[in-house]
């Protein structure tokens, strides 16, 4: 199964790309898939996205197919899902 992951803000800056296609295993959660992805980038990428327990940080907004997703109740991934990750920004 493949999902599209779109990065915004500092995540885009750290990944040096706008988006990428991520292969996910059957029944793999979004958290698990993105933890794998984060391993390919600078440690700051993972620190922005995940808290020390490995869960998504509350300051990151997650959209699935353009709709806000509740991090405590993420739906199962479906082939072709577009996941957008918006970290907090404060530039002025």
């Amino acid at each position, binding site marked *: 199964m493949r999902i599209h992951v779109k990065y*915004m*803000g*500092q995540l*885009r*800056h750290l990944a040096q790309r*706008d988006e990428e296609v991520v292969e996910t295993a059957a029944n793999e959660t979004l958290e698990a898939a993105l933890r794998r992805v984060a391993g390919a980038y600078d440690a*700051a990428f993972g*620190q*922005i996205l995940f808290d020390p327990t490995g869960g998504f*940080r*509350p*300051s990151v*907004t997650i*959209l699935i197919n*353009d709709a*806000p997703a509740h991090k405590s109740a993420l739906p199962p991934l479906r082939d072709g899902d577009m996941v957008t990750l*918006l*970290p*907090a*920004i*404060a*530039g*002025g």
Partner: protein
Amino acid sequence: MNNRATAVSLSDEERAVYEWQMWARGFGEEGQKRLKAATALVSRCGGLGGPVALELAAAGIGRLIVAHGGAIQPSDLNRQILMTADGVGKPRIESIIRRLHEFNPRVEIEGVAENITEANAAELVSKADIVFDCAPLFRERFALNRECVRQRRPMIECAMFGLEGQVMTILPGQTACLACLYPEDPPGWKRQFPVFGAVSAAAACLGVMEGIKLLSGMAPAALAGRLLYYDLASMDFQKIPVSRRADCEVCGRRENP
């Protein structure tokens, strides 16, 4: 929005200056008078808050409180349109006041030569009808958010990074506040970030129109409880609903019913 507008009148000069915007549907002379009767606080007047203050002055806000500490750096000048090259090394607030006054001498301006802190937020917010949050540090943003919620002042939240920006209108007691959106101090945020002035100014202009609508009553704030996120690389704009958190430490219903 404010009852002081009934005691305000427009001079012939003001009617001449603001004539074209008074043609806007729902605004008119009544909207202009309400704007003239209003006070706005702008937290930092850099790449984002500078154009906010300038557009509010252009539109004829009655009073501006502008807060910005420090001295002008060469690296300010790619975006901070209220700063001038001859002011490098001098206090930013001097340039901010001078530029705003030159542009619209009818606007009353109070300059504060410091950034928002826990110590000054309460007093500054108390003097404003609306607050524009444009600071580059979360601690300043959170301090302002707490006071706006406590004092029930609308806050226009504007921010940017790279080619992206966002605007959200916070109406305390009605919509999500900044701490609902960001319940923690986001890790990894740095004072220095990639920025073009035009990206900051885009957020500024969008935020100012939310403020003008609220102050004048010409239309509802379209971004109340919604985060407008834009990406000027793709020119995509999206409105994302942001819900109040019942357990929000700032505006949670238990603490602030």
